């Protein structure tokens, strides 16, 4: 009876445990998964042992007519108890050793290679990645096989850059830098999450990591992304998406964390302090650089300042103008 109960449980765990791990997209993923597998099997063994013994004892030693008293057995047995203190101790030390060896590989950059250094900035509620050469983007662009170093910072509260497929995570703490070092090994697009709770849209603070198959593909992306190459309007559209504006300001008229961009240009806005203001170029500039200066009534003062280059600003304003005037 016990085996009939345990088998499906074990089978389910097998399929679901390590089988649930996402893709291994970074150099550290394999060693992490090896440690995961080791601990998984170890714990499964002990869990099975505990459950099996419990079930066995309950069935065998259940009180029933003819068995109202326990059989004589020792009330302690020091050698046995030392044994089941010693074995777990030895095993957790092995776990510690195995895991720490893998971990040391996760925190030290590979020496001697030219790493791709990306500055990562977390803010409510989007990520921003400054790639070498000045290309900023809301996506993280990497090259398969090229060692990468991320330097994390935050402009407001603690965020945490989480790349499940890379088996990596690091908090971005305001007031200091933190670092990650790894090498992506699979080309493709992988999700990025924020893993440290940071407010209203914490769960929407997502991004993607685009791993280019080779340096040439990365370089092509970097050139195409250069600001000079774009028309003012395209640049504006790109800025709105890339700087994370659209996370809070919709394009369809629905108010979200902030007012929708649709129909914003030229509108008379009621402010939180009771006055009102016409949405013109000056107002937009001020609101982008100093969002707290004039907050629209009905919305919280939560927007971080978004420092834009002059051409980006012009493009952004041009983009807003295309979204229609107030009726």
């Amino acid at each position, binding site marked *: 009876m016990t085996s009939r109960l345990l088998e499906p449980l074990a089978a389910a765990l097998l399929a679901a445990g390590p089988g649930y791990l996402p893709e291994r997209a970074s150099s550290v993923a394999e060693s992490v998964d090896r440690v995961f597998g080791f601990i998984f099997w170890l714990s499964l063994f002990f869990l099975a042992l505990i459950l099996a013994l419990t079930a066995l004892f309950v069935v065998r030693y259940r009180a029933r007519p003819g068995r109202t008293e326990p059989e004589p057995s020792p009330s302690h047995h020091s050698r046995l108890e030392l044994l089941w203190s010693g074995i777990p101790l030895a095993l957790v030390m092995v776990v510690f050793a195995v895991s720490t060896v893998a971990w040391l590989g996760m925190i030290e950059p590979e020496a001697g290679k030219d790493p791709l250094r990306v500055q990562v900035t977390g803010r409510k509620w989007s990520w921003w990645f400054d790639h070498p050469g000045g290309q900023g983007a809301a996506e993280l662009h990497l090259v398969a096989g090229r060692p990468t170093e991320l330097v994390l*910072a935050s402009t407001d509260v603690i965020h945490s850059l989480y790349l499940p497929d890379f088996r990596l995570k690091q908090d971005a703490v305001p*007031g*200091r*830098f*933190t*670092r990650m070092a790894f090498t992506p090994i699979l080309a493709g697009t992988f999700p990025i999450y924020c893993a440290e709770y940071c407010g209203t849209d914490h769960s929407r603070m997502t991004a993607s990591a685009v791993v280019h198959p080779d340096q040439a593909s990365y370089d092509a992306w970097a050139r195409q992304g250069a600001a000079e190459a774009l028309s003012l309007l395209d640049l504006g559209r790109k800025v709105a998406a890339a700087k994370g504006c659209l996370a809070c300001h919709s394009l369809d008229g629905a108010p979200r964390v902030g007012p929708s961009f649709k129909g914003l240009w030229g509108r008379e806005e009621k402010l939180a302090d009771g006055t009102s203001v016409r949405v013109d170029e000056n107002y937009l500039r001020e609101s982008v650089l100093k969002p707290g200066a004039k907050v629209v009534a009905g919305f919280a003062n939560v927007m971080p300042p978004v420092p834009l280059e002059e051409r980006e600003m012009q493009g952004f304003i041009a983009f807003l103008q295309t979204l229609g005037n107030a009726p």
Partner: protein
Amino acid sequence: MTDRTAPTAGPPGAGHRPHALPARVLLGTAAALFVLTAATVATSRVEMGAFNVVAALSIAGLKASLVALFFMHLRYQGRFKAVVFATSVFFAVLLVGFVVFDTTQYQPDIRAQAARTRAKR
């Protein structure tokens, strides 16, 4: 800390003769504390760099031990009270020690960020 819910009136319980500390122990302890206070002021006048802190804390530790041992008659009480007190001091030192150690480790990252913020301004 004590209850006096018992309504029965009566003289303070008899039969229990407490052990009072001799006057000279109390006065001696106080005198030592005064002297050590002077000593801590004196050592702080001598420039010894980081060692100043060590000296000040050592003297303070010595003074605190005197207070605990004699004024708080820890020396004359059951061992358990000393264990309680030592345990609390141990954990407080653990907290201070570990946290200070950890934060000094990542200070360079804080300084770098501060430098960048200043440069931007």
